[in-house]
């Protein structure tokens, strides 16, 4: 299955096409196709996961970084060679070829690895004793499969899948969340006017993410990335009849597009720097071995970081994500939990070699990646306090949590960042679907006006939402605690004390605003209209499943178990020499304390009315601060009025001038020249030359005809006389001259 991983993105694509063409004619209006195919993809992903876990960990990465450039370079060569061998794209063929190779080699290699032809070349390498200074634990060998996509100027562009722990984990999470969102939507989107289109777009969205995470090269990655950009536009603007919604869709599209330029630039730089290849493994190897110059790496990493900032909604381009709440809630859940925003984090994790070298992540101190993440944690968490829309609270929470992931990757805690991605997917998906369930019942998203006291009327939603909130707040032993703790451990262990502090403050804020959110939604008196009721099974089912994951997923990488890091850490991470740090009880205690304090503070302030209330009415600075937050740091104002407005006027004027003088000048000039040429053509060429020839031919034919008509008497015998005369003449000529 790992070799056939291309099926996983393929299924949702097929589903998209089928829903689009046949969806409306089916009894379920297309959702059965979506659920069936995405469910199929989920089953395949689970098989993938099981196969990955049961795969023997027998591949020792030739040891780290600069010290052994030759080893890394050799490995790169091997990768290329084996890729060339696998070109035939028939598994059997290449497997056979690989087997043949092995037979020739003196080192005995177990037969059952023949199927892993793509990396088979590296086997003998792995068998030799490595000379690294520190022991490197063997990991599972990634499964590659590539075909030639097209060839241009002697450069082969491949398409293929590269399945390692990171891909397998993401594929599993994405398909799971997507499946649950599909099921949830069958009820939530019931009677929607574009129900079928919604499911089609949902499938394509999932497909985009899957294409991206399974991709073996940056070009394909870009393809999946942009697929998601398009689908997010379609889905956020699903109810485009309202201007707000279509504006939000446009904003999401344009803002992420601003960052996407960075992705394009980064990929191009890496393509040329790494010797005309898009292959991610090669790029990482070369980046780590020092084959790519530091300047090129720095430029590429900076450009890629722009892409990450755009897609993963990092400061200062985070503004699109809260606006994206205009889309249907299941879409928000999908965007926030498993797809789209996670793409940026995935990009860093996937091209970690590039970032690692460019920003010297192993060195400690401060680097751009960590800085962006750290700032995002704090500013987004602060914004979450002043929102009254439940979805916007969760949106800012997502922005903040993405900040955690980016920061984790920035401080060298690769596994922690990915692990946080993993756990966050479950509890954030849960929270969003929970918010959807609530709004399904009260027909509003406004916590202050239309919610409150839903604890009793919606028990299942309440309990699951609470689980999600506590997990997000980082209270042990739920999932969020373990991943957040790992990030903090990484930050402290790798020499990033500043980010440790930011992480702790962020934990406090997170716990606090989630308490506010839960309190406003589920406690107190019901402030809305009508009679709220618990949602049907299609909605509560996914909630319960996700709650289960939110509780237990964290144990995967709990100290003493640590399966997650064993399963996901890939060649790049090992080769980079990412440090591992022991679980630290004092730090865990402090982290938990921050979470609990946050909850307590939130509860005291919002539920018990303790502390300084009405501060905004009494103190000017507090009011100013509140306004500042409420206006989202005036970033939107900055973008729309100053950046866009500032550019719009002069650009428009300049364009008008260019239009009038340059373009019109060119046009008029062209027209005048055309006229002159046309006149000349008419007078000389057409009238004299062409017409002369035509008329001449006509006159000539007429004259000739009037001469020749005399000969045409119509008498057979005269013709016969000509015939005989001619024959006599020719015969005479033959006799005389031959």
């Amino acid at each position, binding site marked *: 299955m790992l070799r056939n991983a291309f099926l996983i993105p393929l299924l949702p694509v097929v589903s998209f096409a089928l829903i689009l063409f046949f969806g409306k004619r089916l009894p379920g209006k297309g959702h059965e196709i979506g659920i069936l195919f995405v469910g199929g993809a989920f089953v395949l992903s689970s098989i993938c996961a099981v196969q990955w876990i049961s795969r023997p960990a027998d591949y020792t990465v030739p040891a780290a970084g600069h010290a052994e450039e030759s080893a890394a370079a050799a490995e790169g060569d091997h990768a290329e060679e084996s890729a060339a061998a696998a070109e035939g794209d028939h598994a059997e063929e290449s497997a056979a070829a690989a087997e043949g190779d092995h037979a020739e080699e003196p080192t005995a290699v177990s037969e059952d690895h023949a199927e892993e032809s793509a990396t088979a070349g590296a086997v003998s390498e792995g068998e030799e004793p490595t000379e690294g200074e520190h022991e490197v634990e063997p990991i599972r060998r990634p499964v590659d499969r590539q075909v030639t996509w097209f060839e241009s100027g002697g450069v082969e562009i491949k398409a293929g899948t590269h399945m390692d722990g990171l891909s397998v984990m993401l594929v599993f999470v994405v398909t799971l969340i997507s499946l649950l969102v599909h099921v949830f939507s069958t009820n939530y989107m019931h009677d929607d006017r574009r129900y079928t289109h919604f499911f089609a777009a949902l499938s394509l969205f999932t497909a985009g993410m899957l294409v991206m995470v399974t991709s073996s090269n940056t070009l394909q990655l870009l393809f999946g990335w942009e697929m998601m950009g398009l689908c997010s536009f379609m889905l956020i603007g699903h109810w485009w009849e309202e201007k707000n919604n279509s504006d939000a869709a446009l904003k999401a599209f344009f803002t992420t597009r601003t960052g996407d330029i960075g992705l394009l630039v980064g990929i191009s730089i890496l393509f040329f720097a790494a010797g005309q290849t898009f292959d991610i493994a090669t790029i990482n190897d070369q980046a780590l071995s020092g084959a790519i110059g530091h300047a090129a790496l720095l430029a590429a990493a900076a450009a890629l970081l722009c892409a990450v900032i755009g897609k993963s909604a990092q400061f200062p381009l985070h503004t699109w994500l809260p606006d994206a709440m205009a889309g249907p809630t299941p879409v928000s859940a999908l965007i926030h939990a498993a797809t789209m925003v996670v793409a940026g984090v995935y990009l860093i994790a996937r091209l970690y070699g590039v970032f690692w070298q460019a920003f010297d992540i192993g060195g400690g101190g401060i680097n751009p990646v960590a800085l962006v993440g750290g700032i995002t944690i704090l500013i987004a968490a602060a914004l979450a306090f002043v929102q009254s829309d439940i979805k916007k609270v969760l949106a800012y929470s997502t922005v903040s949590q993405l900040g955690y992931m980016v920061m984790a990757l920035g401080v060298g805690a690769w596994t922690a960042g990915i692990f946080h991605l993993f756990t966050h997917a479950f509890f954030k998906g849960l929270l969003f679907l929970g918010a959807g369930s609530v709004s399904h019942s009260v027909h509003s998203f406004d916590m202050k006006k239309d919610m409150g006291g839903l604890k009793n009327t919606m028990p299942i939603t309440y309990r699951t939402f609470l689980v999600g909130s506590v997990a997000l707040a980082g209270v042990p032993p739920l999932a969020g605690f373990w991943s957040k703790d790992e990030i903090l451990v990484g930050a402290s262990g790798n020499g990033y004390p500043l980010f440790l502090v930011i992480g702790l403050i962020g934990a406090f804020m997170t716990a606090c605003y989630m308490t506010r959110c839960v309190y406003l939604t589920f406690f107190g008196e019901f402030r809305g209209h009508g009679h709220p009721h618990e949602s049907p099974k299609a909605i509560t089912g996914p909630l319960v499943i996700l709650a289960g994951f939110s509780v237990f997923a964290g144990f995967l990488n709990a100290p003493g178990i640590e399966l997650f890091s064993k399963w996901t850490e890939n060649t790049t991470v090992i080769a980079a020499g990412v440090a591992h740090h022991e679980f630290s009880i004092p730090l865990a205690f402090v982290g938990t304390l921050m979470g609990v304090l946050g909850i307590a503070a939130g509860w005291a302030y919002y539920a018990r009315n303790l502390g300084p209330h009405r501060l905004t009415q009494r103190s000017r600075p507090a009011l100013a601060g509140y306004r500042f937050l409420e206006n989202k740091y005036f970033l939107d104002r900055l973008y729309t009025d100053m950046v866009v407005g500032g550019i719009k006027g002069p650009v428009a004027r300049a364009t008008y001038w260019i239009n009038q003088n340059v373009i019109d000048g060119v046009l008029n000039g062209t027209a005048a020249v055309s006229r002159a040429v046309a006149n000349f053509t008419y007078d000389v060429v057409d009238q004299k030359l062409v017409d002369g020839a035509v008329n001449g031919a006509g006159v000539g034919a007429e004259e000739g005809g009037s001469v020749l008509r005399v000969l045409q008497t*119509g008498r057979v015998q005269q013709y016969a006389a000509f015939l005989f005369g001619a024959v006599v003449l020719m015969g005479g000529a033959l006799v005389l001259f031959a």
Partner: protein
Amino acid sequence: MYLNQFLLLAAFLFCVGVYGVLARKNGVLVLMSVELILNAVNVNLVAFGAFHNTVVGQVFALFVIAIAAAEVGVGLAIVLLIYRNKQSIDLSEVDLMKG
């Protein structure tokens, strides 16, 4: 027996034929003159065949006779039609194709 005797005979027949074709006004006579030309050729073919001691000449002559029969069939039909339309078979009067 000399070959030239046959050739002279054939040449004579040919000349008579050509005269008939070019000079006679009667359509049927013109057709008969064409037959004379063809038979002059036949005489030549058979004579050369005998002279070279092969049957090829005779075979060729047989083909020519067959073709001539077909040709006369078509020609007589045309003459018949001309007669029906003009009540005459004088070829000098048939000049519909005059340019």
